[in-house]
C-alpha cells in the first residue's frame, strides 16, 4: 500500500502552529496600529464650507484665538465663531470673494455656516476648555500647531491614554498663563527647567483628575 502522506507531512502540524503564531502577531500589530485613535483620528481634515485658513488669520494677521473662539476661556465648549465675527473684517476686506459667499449668506439670513466638527470626545467623557486654558494648558498640547494649518487637521489622538499622560505629569506640559494662546511658545519646563514646572504646579495647586469620576461623571 502506497503512502498517502509523504514523510514531510510529519512536520506539518508544527508548521501550521508556527504560521498561526505569525498570523496572530500580524493581526495584533495591525489592530494596534490601525484600530486605535492614533490612526483613526489623526489627520482628519474635512472639507469645510469656507476654506478658512488659520495660518493666514493667526500667523500672518496675528489675530488671537479668542477673537474668534471667544468662549474658550469662559466655558467648557470652545465656540466656532459666528458669521458676524468674520463680517467684522470681511464687510470691508474681500467683500466679493466667492470663497466667502456662505459667510455673507449666513450673516444676511441668520442661518449658521455648516462648519464640520472635527474634534469630538465621546459623550461618556467630560471635557472642559476653560478648566485647561485658564490653568496654563495651551491649545497646542491638544490641537497641534493650528497657527500653521491651512486646513485644520486632527493632530493628537485625544484618547484616554493621551489625556492621562498629561494628567499624571502636568509639570512638563504647563505654560505661563500668558503664553497659552501663543502656540509657538515654550513650556515652563523647557524655558526654566522641570523644577520651575513643578513649582508652578505646586503654587497654582494644579491637580488634574486621575480618578475615573473626574472625566466620566
Amino acid at each position: 500500500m502506497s503512502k498517502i502522506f509523504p514523510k514531510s507531512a510529519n512536520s506539518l502540524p508544527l508548521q501550521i502552529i508556527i504560521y498561526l503564531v505569525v498570523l496572530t502577531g500580524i493581526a495584533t500589530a495591525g489592530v494596534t496600529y490601525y484600530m486605535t485613535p492614533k490612526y483613526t483620528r489623526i489627520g482628519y481634515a474635512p472639507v469645510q464650507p469656507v476654506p478658512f485658513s488659520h495660518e493666514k488669520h493667526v500667523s500672518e494677521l496675528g489675530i488671537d484665538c479668542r477673537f474668534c473662539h471667544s468662549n474658550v476661556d469662559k466655558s467648557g465648549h470652545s465656540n466656532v465663531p459666528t458669521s458676524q465675527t468674520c463680517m467684522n473684517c470681511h464687510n470691508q476686506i474681500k467683500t466679493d470673494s466667492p470663497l466667502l459667499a456662505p459667510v455673507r449668506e449666513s450673516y444676511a439670513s441668520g442661518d449658521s455656516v455648516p462648519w464640520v466638527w472635527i474634534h469630538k470626545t465621546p459623550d461618556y467623557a467630560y471635557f472642559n476648555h476653560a478648566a485647561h486654558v485658564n490653568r496654563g494648558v495651551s491649545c497646542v498640547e491638544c490641537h497641534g500647531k493650528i497657527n500653521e494649518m491651512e486646513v485644520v487637521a486632527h493632530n493628537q489622538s485625544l484618547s484616554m491614554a493621551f489625556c492621562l499622560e498629561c494628567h499624571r505629569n502636568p509639570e512638563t506640559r504647563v505654560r505661563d498663563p500668558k503664553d497659552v494662546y501663543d502656540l509657538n511658545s515654550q513650556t515652563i519646563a523647557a524655558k526654566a527647567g522641570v523644577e520651575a514646572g513643578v513649582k508652578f504646579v505646586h503654587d497654582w495647586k494644579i491637580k488634574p483628575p486621575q480618578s475615573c469620576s473626574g472625566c466620566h461623571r
Partner: protein
Amino acid sequence: MRHVYLVTFFVVVLGVSILGLRGTKFTSAPMDVFPEWAFPGMKHQPKPYAQGSSDFFADGRSDRMPVAGTVQRGMLRDDEHLDHGKTATGAFARGFPEVLPVDFKLMERGKDRFTIYCAPCHGALGDGNGITKKYGMGATPSFHDDRLRQIAEGEIYQTITNGKNNMLSYADKLVPADRWAVIAYVRALQRAQSGTVADVPAAHKSELGLK
C-alpha cells in the same frame, strides 16, 4: 508552505498600501472601530450639543434663544449706567459706573481684552493702524483726535455694544464689565499719546535726562 508565507506577505503589503500610514491626511469621517450598533456604550447620547444641530427645531439648531419675556440668570441688564452707558435722563453717561472701581486690575483686564478684540483694527496704540489697514480697511479711526478724547464714556460703550457704521457689535464677546475695562484702557491710551514733559513727576525727570 513557502507559498502561504508569500501570499500572507502580499496580503500585508496590500493592506498597508490601502490603509496607509498613521498621520496621513484624510477628509472622510474617522472610522468608528467600535460602532454604536454593535457595541452600545453611550458614545452618542440623545442630547443637544452646544452649537449642534437638531432635527426637532425648525431652524435646525440645538441652541435656543431665551423665550420672549424671560431673562437668563446673570443676564439681567437693568443698570442704566453699567449696562447701557446712559444716565437716568437718557444722555450718554460720563465717567465709569460706580460698581466698577477703576483700578489696576480693571486696567490689566482692559489691556488684555483690547489687545484681543480691538488691536487688529485700531492698533496696539489705538492709532487706527492695526494689521487690517494693510489689507484694505482704511476707515478705522484713530482714538487720538479731539472728538474721541472729549466723547462721553457712555458713547464709546454704545459703539462697542451696538457697533457704528462699519464697525459691528462686540457685545457677544465682551460682557458689560469687560466693555468698561476696555474703555478705561482706551482712555489710558489717549492719555499716553497726549502726554507732555509737564506730566513727568519732578522726582523722575533726571532719570529721563530732563531738567
